[in-house]
């Protein structure tokens, strides 16, 4: 880092602006909260008075030339990127802008099937064709892993016309593919390499963590600053490497991003970037230490398996993010989602997500030892009270998709609604996913199989929250007419 990372230009501009006591005859209409006293009561005077519009002293997110521009340059410096864009529509917006920047209708993009729904949304929007690399799968844990290098090579060999390769760095569970090697072969074949780093912000600041996308030479990365980075929910960064045109990417972002960017979100990005640049190394070392401690204690309870580095295999689990507290629960006869529900309902503990065989507790720069003790103690109690035979438990299987039509074509095609049991063999025109983690079970254009229907049925029965289709109860699905 070469710039003065103690600066926070947007925050400083807001502070200056407050002192000017400018009379607002512009939006937002609450006018520093005066028009909405209940909102002031809830959020506090300071917060609502910082909810202001773009103006000369505060710059403009769509076309930044002063303080936002400076904040972007500081962020780029902190993340080791050629440029950084401040995003206020969540990492979904960052991921979508990233995809839309490199592929257009009919062009191919190589990606693992366990991508976030936002990637598939981008493909529906732009009409690009997904080429899936089946992620490797861990039999015991039942979770999708990273991509094997040989599988990526094969996909590139079969699709030399593809424009880009997208990589999860890491997956929700903390698993990383060999990003450096994937970047290298993508570039050798004239393709861009994009990274979904929704769960990897800390890679840029901590030590002994997996390699970050920018350090690995990737061309773009969508970084969820609001997850491990500590900024406000919905704020995010889009990073680009030297091969990308800043102007082109900005144009793509401006197609869909708001023209009323929230200064609460923007200043939170600015302050969090400063915090991580100054204190990130120590802060994430502490998170890793807490997570390692929690793993040791949870594994000592018995019945649970909190996994980490020992899974590394040099390929589809090239690296593991030790800040992630991912725990396998099936061996004691409980689905991850069941443990997730018991923790919330009976112990007042909210964790990030549970799937059929695992749960994830999210540790971050805000965690303390005493809360970790509560989590571990509650898990010990859950085992004592609920442990049962694990026969008949289904683990989360990776189901290889059968892509019949492009996501864009399927989403916009003529369709009909059928009871879900009658959809076997038909082509789905909508998304079905468990949320979280938000990884699609079906995406538009994929053929529905018996295995998929069984999986949806079982996941619903275990209490997974299923989202995506028009019918919120998922008793019916939209399928393509005549296909």
């Amino acid at each position, binding site marked *: 880092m070469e710039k003065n990372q103690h600066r926070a230009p947007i925050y400083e501009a807001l502070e200056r602006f407050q002192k000017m006591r400018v009379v607002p005859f512009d939006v937002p209409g609450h006018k520093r909260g005066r028009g909405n006293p209940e909102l002031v009561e809830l959020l506090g005077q300071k917060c609502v008075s910082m909810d202001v519009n773009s103006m000369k002293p505060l710059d403009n997110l769509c076309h930044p030339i002063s303080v936002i521009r400076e904040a972007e340059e500081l962020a780029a410096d902190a993340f080791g990127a050629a440029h950084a864009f401040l995003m206020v529509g969540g990492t979904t917006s960052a991921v979508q802008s990233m995809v839309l920047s490199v592929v257009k209708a009919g062009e191919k993009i190589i990606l693992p099937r366990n991508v976030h729904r936002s990637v598939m949304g981008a493909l529906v929007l732009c009409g690009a064709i997904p080429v899936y690399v089946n992620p490797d799968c861990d039999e015991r844990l039942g979770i999708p892993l990273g991509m094997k290098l040989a599988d990526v090579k094969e996909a590139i060999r079969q699709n030399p016309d593809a424009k880009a390769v997208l990589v999860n760095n890491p997956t929700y569970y903390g698993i990383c593919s060999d990003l450096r090697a994937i970047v290298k072969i993508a570039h050798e074949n004239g393709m861009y390499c994009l990274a979904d780093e929704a769960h990897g912000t800390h890679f840029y600041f901590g030590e002994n963590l997996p390699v970050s996308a920018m350090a690995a030479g990737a061309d773009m990365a969508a970084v969820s600053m609001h997850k491990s980075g500590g900024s406000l929910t919905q704020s995010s960064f889009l990073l680009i490497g030297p091969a990308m045109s800043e102007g082109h990417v900005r144009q793509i972002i401006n197609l869909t991003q708001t023209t009323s960017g929230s200064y609460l979100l923007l200043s939170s990005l600015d302050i969090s970037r400063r915090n991580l640049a100054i204190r990130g190394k120590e802060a994430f070392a502490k998170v890793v230490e807490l997570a390692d401690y929690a793993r040791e*204690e949870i594994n000592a*309870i018995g019945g649970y398996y909190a996994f980490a580095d020992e899974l590394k295999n040099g390929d589809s689990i090239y690296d593991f993010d030790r800040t992630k507290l991912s725990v396998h629960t099936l061996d004691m006869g409980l689905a991850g989602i069941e443990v997730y529900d018991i923790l919330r309902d*009976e*112990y*007042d503990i909210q964790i990030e997500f549970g799937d059929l065989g695992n749960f994830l507790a999210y540790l971050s720069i805000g965690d303390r*030892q*005493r809360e970790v*003790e*509560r989590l*571990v*103690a*509650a898990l*010990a*109690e859950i085992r*004592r*009270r609920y442990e049962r035979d694990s026969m008949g438990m289904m683990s989360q299987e990776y189901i290889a998709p059968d892509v019949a039509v492009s996501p864009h074509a399927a989403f916009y095609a003529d369709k009909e609604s059928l009871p879900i049991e009658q959809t076997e063999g038909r082509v789905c025109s909508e998304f079905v996913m468990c949320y979280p983690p938000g990884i699609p079970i079906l995406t538009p254009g994929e053929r529905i199989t018996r295995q998929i229907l069984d999986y949806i049925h079982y996941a619903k029965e275990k209490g997974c929250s299923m989202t995506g289709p028009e019918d919120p109860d998922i008793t019916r699905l939209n399928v393509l007419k005549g296909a």
Partner: protein
Amino acid sequence: MEFWFSEMHTPNVKLSIRVDRQLYSGQSDFQRIDIFESPEFGRFLVLDGYMMLTEKDEFIYHEMIVHVPMAVHPHVKRVLVIGAGDGGVIRELCRYDDIEQIDMVEIDPQVVEVCKEYLPQTACSLDDPRVKIYYEDGLKFIRWCKDCYDLIIVDSTDPFGPGEGLFTREFYGNCFKALKEDGIMVNQHESPFYKEDALAMQKAHKRIVESFPFSRVFQAHIPTYPSGHWLFGFSTKKYHPLRDLDEKRWNARGLKCRYYTTTLHKGAFYVPAYVEELLKDVEPER
């Protein structure tokens, strides 16, 4: 010179005690620790601004939290005490010759050091050979215990700050597991009077009744605690706090107390109507 210690009992009520001088002030890894000397209450211990005990009225709390279960359980040999860095609970327990082992788990060693130096009235028995002090998180310690104590005394601070974990279902569940088949757990149960305290009291009660087959509360009157009306929880796997009270056996021990008597023991379980109502609100339908 006017020198007063004030504690807010609610945002609108405070208790003030005139102070002669401050004997100690320090910040541990967990909390701020202060000791004051006052004309009315003698020395008193304050953690993070909350008064924990005074020399004048600590006997009420410590006698009630120890002698009530000791007069019920016929053969207490192994006791676990959580919290209690001031030593008051240990002092009362050490009066029983037939107790063989007292494990005390206190998260903050600095509280113990300070009390040993400035509050010998309560800390006097901490060096008893039967007492073993573990400086760690109570929630962590108890995870590893199964079927090993006759009596657990939870002498916690308040349900916020470092003591928060001791008011949770995971803690009470682990206490249940750590007790023998006829074990008893007694806990500091907050006050039913002011709204915020009453909510904390109800929440603790709810978590306890979910974890134990039988649980009742008993009361005492402690002048320096918010509202002066204080509750304790009595949770048990086998013995009933009144039917299994053996007055003759306990009185034969000849332990002289200033607050506790076996007659008061019986009365302490008869709580005011509004307290019964608060408790019933969070108990499952029977």
